[in-house]
């Protein structure tokens, strides 16, 4: 029985205490640490190649793929050389061999919200990419069936976008304040 103290997070990796002068890179791509978790910041063009390389490195399972809309919060901390864009696609990969997770944060501009699909490397991203498309309107190029998944097929708009008017549909109760 080990006497290690209880941990609050599953994937605490020993973060290097002294940050070296040269930039932090993973497979030649800018990376950073967030609360002891590894984060890599590939561009859209680098994404699929990076995920493939990491797949061969043992990051064989894609746990999660979600979107985020930074419309109201543009000034977030990113490593040098990464220009913040409105949208972000966040991919979480796991290596069972090393028992560690890596998070990829891909910047997606508002003017051209298109990201290459990871379906060819991780077929499990099928539903997740559909959800991001549904909620944020980010298009995944190469996805076999990019349709709405949670909202009805004829729905207009993408509900998790920060500029989506959530009070757009009148409430069908008597006496409810109209907007």
């Amino acid at each position, binding site marked *: 029985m080990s006497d290690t103290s209880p941990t609050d997070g599953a994937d605490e990796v020993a973060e290097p205490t002294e940050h070296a002068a040269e930039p932090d890179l993973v497979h030649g791509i800018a990376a950073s640490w967030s609360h002891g978790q590894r984060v890599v910041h590939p561009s859209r063009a680098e994404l699929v190649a990076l995920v493939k390389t990491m797949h061969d490195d043992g990051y064989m399972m894609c746990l999660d793929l979600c979107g985020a809309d930074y419309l109201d919060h543009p000034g977030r901390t990113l490593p040098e050389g990464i220009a913040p864009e409105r949208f972000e696609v966040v991919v979480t990969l796991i290596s069972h061999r090393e028992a560690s997770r890596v998070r990829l944060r891909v910047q997606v501009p508002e003017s051209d919200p298109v990201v290459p699909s990871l379906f060819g490397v991780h077929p*499990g991203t099928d539903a997740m990419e559909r959800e991001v498309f549904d909620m944020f309107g980010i298009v995944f190029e190469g996805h076999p069936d990019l349709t709405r998944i949670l909202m009805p097929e004829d729905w207009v708009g993408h*509900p998790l976008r920060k500029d989506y008017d959530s009070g757009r549909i009148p409430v069908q109760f008597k006496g409810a304040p109209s907007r």
Partner: protein
Amino acid sequence: MTTTDHLHQTEDPSLTSEGRQGLASSDVNDAIARLIEKGAVLRLAEADVADETPVEVADEESMIINMGPQHPSTHGVLRIMLELRGETVLRSKPIIGYLHTGMEWTGEELSYLQGCTNVTRMDYASPLFSELAFSLTVEKLLDIEVPDRAIWIRMLMTEMNRISSHLLFMATNGMDLGAVSMMLYGWREREETLRFLEKVTGLRMNHNYIRPGGVAADLPDGWRDDVLRLMDMIPPRLDEYDTLLTGQPIWRERLQGVGVIDTETCMALGTTGPILRSTGYAWDLRRDMPYLAYDQVEFDVVVGTFGDCFDRYAIRLQEIRESIRIVHQILDRMPKGDYRIQDKKVTPPPRGRIDESMEALIHHFKIFTEGFKVPEGEAYCAVESPRGELGCYIVSDGSSHPYRMHIRGPSFVNLQTLPHLMHGALIADAVAIISSVDPILGEVDR
């Protein structure tokens, strides 16, 4: 049915008592190619079906039929579009969204203190796990450590919840396959477990008990006796289930060799939990990436051999026994002390202080109206829920509300295995397969 010993953990988590269960990358690549080529997933828009436009089907004898959303075996409101030839399922497509209420959006509207009331309603069969994942993520962003007692109370409560969730699976799995007495037994035992959860948290379900900073209240007087009574009651009942189902020829006929999946496919699809373990791959976050104090308790990770519905049933049954083993260790080791962090930033002052001190009153008021602020950043934390890896991703912009709150629901991801499990199966087996995936639609649709 094999188990791997928690204490004999080697540096390689894929090593089991049955030899190495690891994966070479190329095997997974083969599986990915197979998955993409085989075409078990029906790629068909609902509108096309509604318009009665000629649908491209394999031949004239096949037809497309909808199962659900009101079908009793679909565990809530899941619809599956099936392409059938006679009674054989060719391709299928799960259609979800009927329970979508925008809970991730609601999560952005609620403060961190209120957030648990929201996430707890996602997976309503195991609500404490969503609360735990949410709380761990917020605590990571706040960079605080909860007291020992809170950690052990969280373990006790989540293990009790795992027992109740698996008992519910036993009940519904029995019901789906026509073993109605199993349904009654399963609900009966689950209710006993929920009674304990109710005594501690005040509610049978949707507890809002695990909160950032600890738990909502200390364990009530006499909790130990209640747990002991349950721990004495449940094991003989599990043996009854064994007698009723495990060895029963009809039960085995319905489940063995039905809905077979292999490890490589699971890896490619991101499947976790009992479905992944049923393929013989020993991966359990409690053992392999321990959170709370799971590195200090002894338990086995239960794995299957064939990856069929029977293995998934047997794994869940055995996991109840393992949870009971963990609960016994928690009873022996429950530390004394605070049940929540005494950090004034996140914890409201005790009731008594409010009467004496103006500052405490203001502080109390501020916490409940404004909420506490969380430093800017983003984090992902995951726990092993009864259905697999339940993760929570939160982006904070420094205010008292999450800027983005995302839950990685294991049911949502695991549901993608359905077309592959059902490919080539009979429609009667489809019911057994849906049941063995054990999806909770509240978590799928969020």
